[in-house]
């Protein structure tokens, strides 16, 4: 089984999120970059599938030259081949991203399975996997939390509003997964060494216009507050019990 896993380089953010002065980007001067959590699980799932079924894992990203670092992180998790669709520093929208990925999948495949994260952590567009599936004429299921292989297809599952939904898809198929489908491994030392030496293939994607365009970003105004301190240590428990009583949550 030959699997293509697509990832995105996103800022690593912690307790606060700050923007560049022009309001166009997240300020990353004090932080680094990582891969969206759902997508790290997509790569882990691809590696696990090929460990069981045989085959290859190719990781692909569309992004600036620096996104090579995220591809190497994914090579260290067990992917065997890496492809960078190299762009400038500007953000690509969902339609142009999907078109470029579909074109690259055609040029570098064939693949039995294309795995994505359900949505990117930063832009949260919720559509690239579906658009890629349509460009390639493949069936697609999104938000998947369980994935199994059948004779000529895959069986994908998720929970929706407390009930289990199960989809049987013929292969090749496009699947987007959510965190929780697996627990991504930590890269092994040999994995890291292999990733460092590996070649990252570069392709130049053809840009095309996007119908959704960012004007600027803002940090939503939230009620600025400082928690009222009820006390310190176990001595604060009576005050805490009184509060829970007032909130009406005590049995």
């Amino acid at each position, binding site marked *: 089984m030959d699997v293509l896993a697509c990832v995105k380089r996103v800022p690593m*953010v*912690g*307790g*606060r*999120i700050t923007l560049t002065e022009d309001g166009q980007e*997240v300020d990353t001067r004090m932080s680094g970059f990582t891969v969206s959590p*759902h997508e790290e699980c997509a790569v882990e799932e691809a590696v696990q599938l090929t460990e069981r079924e045989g085959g290859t894992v190719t990781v692909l990203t569309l992004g600036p030259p620096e996104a090579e670092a995220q591809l190497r992180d994914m090579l260290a998790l067990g992917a065997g081949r890496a492809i960078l669709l190299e762009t400038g520093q500007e953000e690509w*929208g*969902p339609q142009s991203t999907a078109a470029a990925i579909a074109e690259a999948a055609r040029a570098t495949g064939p693949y039995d399975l294309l795995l994505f994260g359900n*949505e990117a952590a*930063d*832009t*949260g*567009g*919720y*559509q690239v996997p579906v658009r890629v*599936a*349509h*460009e390639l004429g493949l*069936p697609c299921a*999104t*938000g998947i939390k369980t994935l199994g292989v059948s004779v000529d297809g895959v069986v994908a599952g998720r929970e*929706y*509003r*407390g*009930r*289990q*939904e*199960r989809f*049987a*898809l013929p292969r090749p198929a496009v699947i987007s997964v*959510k*965190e*929780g489908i697996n*627990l*991504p491994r930590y890269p092994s030392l040999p994995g890291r060494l292999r990733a460092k030496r590996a070649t990252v293939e570069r392709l130049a994607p053809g840009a095309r216009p*996007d*119908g*959704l365009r*960012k*004007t600027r*970003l*803002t940090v939503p105004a939230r009620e600025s*507050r400082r*928690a*009222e*301190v*009820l006390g*310190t*240590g*176990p001595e604060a*428990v009576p005050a*805490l*019990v009184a*509060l*829970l009583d007032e909130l*009406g*949550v*005590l*049995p």
Partner: protein
Amino acid sequence: MTVLCLTELEPDGGTVTDASLRALAFSRSLAGPAGEDVAAAVLDAPDAALAGEARAALAAAGVRTAHVADLGEAAGYAPLAWARALAELATTGLATTGLASTGPASTGPASAVVAAGTDHGQEVLAHLGAITGLPMAANCLTAARGDGGQWQLTRQRWAGSLTEEAVLDGDPALLTVATDAVAPAPAETPAELAVAPFRPSLADGDLTVRATVSAERGGGVSLATARVVVGGGRGVGGPDGFGPLEELAGLLGGALGVSRVVTSQGWRPHRQQVGQTGTRITPELYLACGISGAIQHMAGCLSARTIVVVNTDPDAPILAHAQYAVIGDLGQVIPALVEAVRARQNPVR
């Protein structure tokens, strides 16, 4: 013109889902200023019939026309088939369904197609975007059509930690709604609802991907709907430290929730994770213990009515989002709290 809103029903078909009521409220905010009507696309009505309770809910939400799909053998959730049905309604309005209509034909082509920002809503609108070649904007907060037909909108990024202002060229505009940011409020004046059954024309392959649904998973209080959530983070220290938190959650009739570090360490299963890539919670009380408050975590719990923090660090970012805090070690505070709650339950006479 009309604003067409994908509207889902509860599994028994009795009434409209909360998320869809929010999407309908958002749809009214688009339709009102333009003097347009809101139409609902109901694709999951059992036996293609709309129950009285659902009709009342739609009328209260200001829906003029409910297009109720008769999918026959094709009934059930199939994302591409649902997108095909929306595409048909959006381009032709009642033109194809007028004959079957039981009410006044009042709508035309859609100016916007709206869905709740749920797994189904995002997936169906993404398919609709792909089959029509139209752009789609997910998790919108506001949208309005400006001069020249271009839409100005705001939408969530980072699960709501950032707001994006954007323009969208789309006719119709395809928008999903950030359900935690729009209240499920009824219309000021209820609409007179017309029900228009229709049978979508599906293409080959539209049913290739189709859900088989199995019964609800039982057992325990659901994290998403729990009235009380007791949260544990890195400060719990390891997989063996969750006993007192679970005990407290049990005493309060609530659920245990954890931060991402806890699940990525394998201390607890992912289904207990609160946050951007886990569950969004909406409890009366969120008691967050040993959690620093990364934005990805806060994205999942800011809808809690009251947040109370137990943390050794008085400068932890989560204190800026909480109403109350106890500064201290959760390993001491929580067992003492459990004891105190127990003592109240069973007072010594």
